[in-house]
């Protein structure tokens, strides 16, 4: 499972809370969900939620991370040249759960107090370094940055919201853009 090794150990109570909140987000949005409602849905006391997540923002960030790990799971790429395919699959997954895609996209753009904006940065960097060792460090950083930007829920949100694109067109455009990023290094892989 990709990224699973980075995931914190969650108790079954925490999993129940995060599941309940993500369900309620899909039903009524992030704002209109009270801790009481989450507690009822999760089958725990309201005080239990506060013990794990003292503030709403703590709960939201934990839920967002959990959604990325369990619902928008990507198949692990063996090669950097497989990443466009993973991006395409991710876009299809976002398209199936639009409300959750918005939550994941928004929490990653909050700055230092938000969710990790480039969770696969180190993995991409390691793959590029291993497969295209001749690429200068600076060039590698710019390539990894572009791929991380494309490999995110914000891609789906922008293409949906700003361009009104359908799910399959978004999946195509995101994959195509990622392939284009790899064009300059296609024939520079180490033998």
């Amino acid at each position: 499972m990709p990224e699973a090794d980075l995931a914190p150990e969650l108790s079954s109570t925490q999993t129940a809370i995060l599941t309940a909140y993500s369900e309620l987000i899909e039903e009524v949005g992030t704002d209109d969900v009270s801790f009481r409602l989450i507690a009822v849905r999760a089958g725990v006391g309201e005080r239990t939620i506060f013990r794990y997540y003292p503030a709403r923002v703590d709960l939201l960030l934990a839920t967002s991370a959990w959604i990325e790990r369990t619902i928008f799971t990507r198949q692990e790429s063996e090669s950097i040249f497989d990443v466009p395919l993973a991006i395409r699959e991710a876009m299809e997954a976002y398209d199936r759960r639009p409300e959750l895609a918005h939550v994941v996209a928004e929490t990653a753009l909050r700055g230092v107090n938000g969710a990790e904006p480039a969770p696969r940065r180190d993995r991409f960097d390691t793959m590029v370094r291993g497969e295209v060792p001749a690429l200068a460090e600076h060039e590698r950083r710019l390539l990894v940055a572009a791929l991380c930007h494309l490999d995110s829920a914000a891609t789906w949100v922008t293409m949906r919201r700003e361009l009104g694109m359908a799910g399959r067109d978004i999946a195509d455009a995101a994959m195509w853009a990622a392939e284009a990023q790899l064009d300059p290094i296609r024939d520079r892989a180490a033998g």
Partner: protein
Amino acid sequence: MDKPVDTEAAILGSAVALLREHTFEDISYLDLAEATAVSERTIYRRFPTRSHLLEALASWIEAEQFPLPQFRTPEEFREAVRARFRAYETAPGCAFVAARGAALSPTTQAPAVPITSAIFAMLDDAAPTLNGRDRQRIAAAARYFASPMFWARMRTGFDMSADETLEAFDRAMLPILAPARKTSWAA
């Protein structure tokens, strides 16, 4: 404040002022009410939830704080993006709100943002015979890399300055614009 001035604009203006010192999360409706000299109820009536507030604030900031320079050619597009990234850097609190607001599930049918239609116009001018699929892919990618979201991700995830972010933008745009490119990009 009894004058029939635009209350909504006044509230959003107060929010922008508060964003210089605080994050969006730290700004309560009570803070906004006090800064705008209106009742908390007035704020709730205009913005029933914080998502409504964030969304309205983001579009207001985009229009008022970071107005998009006009562009018609790829070179002018690049200059417009450079100016925006630099402006984001001078007001990061506002820029993060702009990025976040653009990621929200829309509560209202927002009017089309001018940058998207300007990108299509630029492409149609630079490559009038481009097929429809590539036209859409290129416009979508260009729109996404020119957004405050890209600036925000580069800043938090890669610790990049505005100028480094422009460099990453150049690197990303080079192969994306290749099918539509007749003149050189960022030569």
